[in-house]
């Protein structure tokens, strides 16, 4: 089944029900279905064809939700791009996937304009909230009222549904290819163990460009549930007010949000009485944070989960196991398998550390036009007819098969729930005038999990850390920009003279 069929089905079952609440606007399933029909028809008329890639470069908002389903109804492939992405990287993505169109908003239009000056491509640009400043662009709002019907059968479910760009260990982002079956399989598996239903009301502050945030929308539409969409958790009290008013039942977290909640001084247990479940993924929660969350939300189930964009989600810990094994991220999600293997690909005994390997219908099709990187991740498995996903994450299993995260095989930093490849940040630092050498490492941080820390050797002693930070902020997404920059006279190197991230990480001051 194709992903957009869920929207049509939810309209049939719950047409008058609220699908999306955002910035004071409430959109019913009937309206959501109509708006996306309009957008799909308009995109087709403007030349977007089956299989074309369309970037959705927007902040969290109803327009982004409409864009995603509109693109699918047109038979095209959506690629959500984080709203804090800067022109250089945006241009790279436009060229890498040969985007046929970009759906954006007025606030982000300057970044699109700059990107298109660098890019080889000339995609259609559709702008929400004011098209005046963008010559040649089409107004998003005009597209929504298109009277033509979109194609009834825009494709089949092995067609690509989306490309999600992730930070690559080589320094360039890679597009994770997911077909409709992959997305359906992941969404179906997750809603099963969450025991989620059409009665759920889900609060999402996570970016729709981040798969964890994106799937809140996909799952809500699949269930016929309500999604309350917000841009930021910067002011938790304001979000809690909204959650009370909307009677929110589902609350997806990343560890940074949990850390912010745990730091709050005046919260009373049970202050969100309708909450039925909380989820956490991206990195494990500290045991003390789990304890505090359970105290604050005594009636809600807390799910510890683990995953990566390449298969969306790997494991979940049944909430009933949380007391017994708070450090575990659980077992494989329904209808998938998670194995810990050695270097030869053989399953290791309980307690032995190995690489986590994933089998199942949620595993990606590969990286967009990047065979080498695909072959690194998707490798021959136990059966001759399938490839399995090598996560690059080190795990062990206990005697009962519950899984424990140990660390990464590579240097990927996990900050604020997002993955950052040190090489991508180092490439920007190396391009900074006055910087001779740089190495980037993750530094333990009580709120962020890890913070991005840069160690820099200068070729021009007049350059300041602040100037370097400003250089990075202009070129990297917010979460990738180094939180701290340390000037040294030389970088930590191995005996053979190679810059070593491991030695660099070991040379940091211990965390507070």
């Amino acid at each position, binding site marked *: 089944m194709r992903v957009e069929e869920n929207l049509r089905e939810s309209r049939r079952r719950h047409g008058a029900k609220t699908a999306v609440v955002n910035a004071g606007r409430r959109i019913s399933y009937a309206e959501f279905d109509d708006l996306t029909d309009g957008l799909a028809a308009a995109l087709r008329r403007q030349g977007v064809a089956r299989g074309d890639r369309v970037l959705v470069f927007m902040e969290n908002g109803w327009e982004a939700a409409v864009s995603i389903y509109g693109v699918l109804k047109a038979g095209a492939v959506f690629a959500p791009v984080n709203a804090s992405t800067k022109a250089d990287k945006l241009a790279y993505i436009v060229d890498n996937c040969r985007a046929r169109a970009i759906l954006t908003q007025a606030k982000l239009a300057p970044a699109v304009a700059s990107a298109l000056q660098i890019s080889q491509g000339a995609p259609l640009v559709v702008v929400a909230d004011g098209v005046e400043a963008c010559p040649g662009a089409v107004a998003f709002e005009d597209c929504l009222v298109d009277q033509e019907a979109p194609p009834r059968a825009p494709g089949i479910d092995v067609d690509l549904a989306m490309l999600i760009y992730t930070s690559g260990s080589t320094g360039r982002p890679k597009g994770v290819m997911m077909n409709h079956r992959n997305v359906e399989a992941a969404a179906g598996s997750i809603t099963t163990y969450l025991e989620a239903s059409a009665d759920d009301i889900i609060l999402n502050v996570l970016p729709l460009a981040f798969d964890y945030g994106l799937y809140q929308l996909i799952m809500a539409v699949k269930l016929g549930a309500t999604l309350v969409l917000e841009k*930021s958790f*910067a*002011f*938790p*009290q304001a979000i809690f007010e909204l959650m009370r008013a909307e009677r929110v039942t589902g609350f997806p977290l990343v560890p940074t949000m949990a850390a*912010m909640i745990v730091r709050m001084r*005046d919260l009373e247990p049970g202050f969100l009485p309708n909450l039925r479940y909380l989820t956490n993924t991206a990195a494990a929660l500290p045991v003390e944070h789990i304890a505090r969350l359970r105290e604050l939300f005594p009636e809600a189930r807390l799910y510890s989960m683990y995953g990566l964009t390449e298969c969306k989600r790997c494991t979940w810990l049944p909430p009933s196991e949380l007391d017994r094994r708070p450090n575990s991220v659980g077992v494989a999600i329904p209808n998938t398998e998670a194995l810990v293997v050695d270097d030869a690909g053989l399953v290791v005994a309980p307690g032995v550390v190995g690489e986590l390997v994933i089998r199942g219908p949620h595993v990606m099709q590969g990286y967009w036009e990047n065979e080498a990187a695909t072959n690194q991740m998707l490798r021959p498995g136990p059966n001759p007819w399938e490839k399995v996903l090598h996560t690059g994450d080190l795990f062990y299993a206990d005697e009962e098969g519950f899984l424990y995260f140990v660390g990464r095989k590579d240097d990927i930093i996990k900050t*604020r729930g997002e993955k950052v490849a040190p090489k991508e940040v180092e490439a920007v630092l190396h391009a900074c005038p006055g910087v001779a050498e740089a190495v980037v490492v993750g530094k333990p941080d009580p709120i962020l999990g890890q913070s991005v820390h840069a160690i820099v050797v200068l070729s021009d002693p007049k350059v300041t850390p602040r100037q370097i930070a*400003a250089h990075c902020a202009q070129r990297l997404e*917010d979460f990738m920009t180094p939180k701290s920059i340390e000037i040294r006279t030389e970088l930590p190197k191995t005996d053979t003279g190679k810059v070593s991230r491991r030695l660099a990480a070991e040379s940091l001051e211990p965390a507070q």
Partner: protein
Amino acid sequence: MSDSIKADVRAFVVESFLFGDTNYDLSDDTSFIEGDIIDSTGVLELVAFIEERFDITLADAEIIPANLDSIAKIQAFVSRKTTPAQAMAV
């Protein structure tokens, strides 16, 4: 007093979140969130700064956009918190 609150907050925001970029069009009423000036952890830093600089303690319920989402809002909020007569009236 109120002008010095604004100046202090402006200096902190420019230094901490704009990397000293004084060309950024930061008016007293610019929303920190809408303007993408601060993120979640930025709010924590901002609260820590306000508590230390103005010697006040913020309750969770006070950490809301109405009090903290622009230089002018912070100035009004800090003025209320630090004026004894008005503080008693709250």
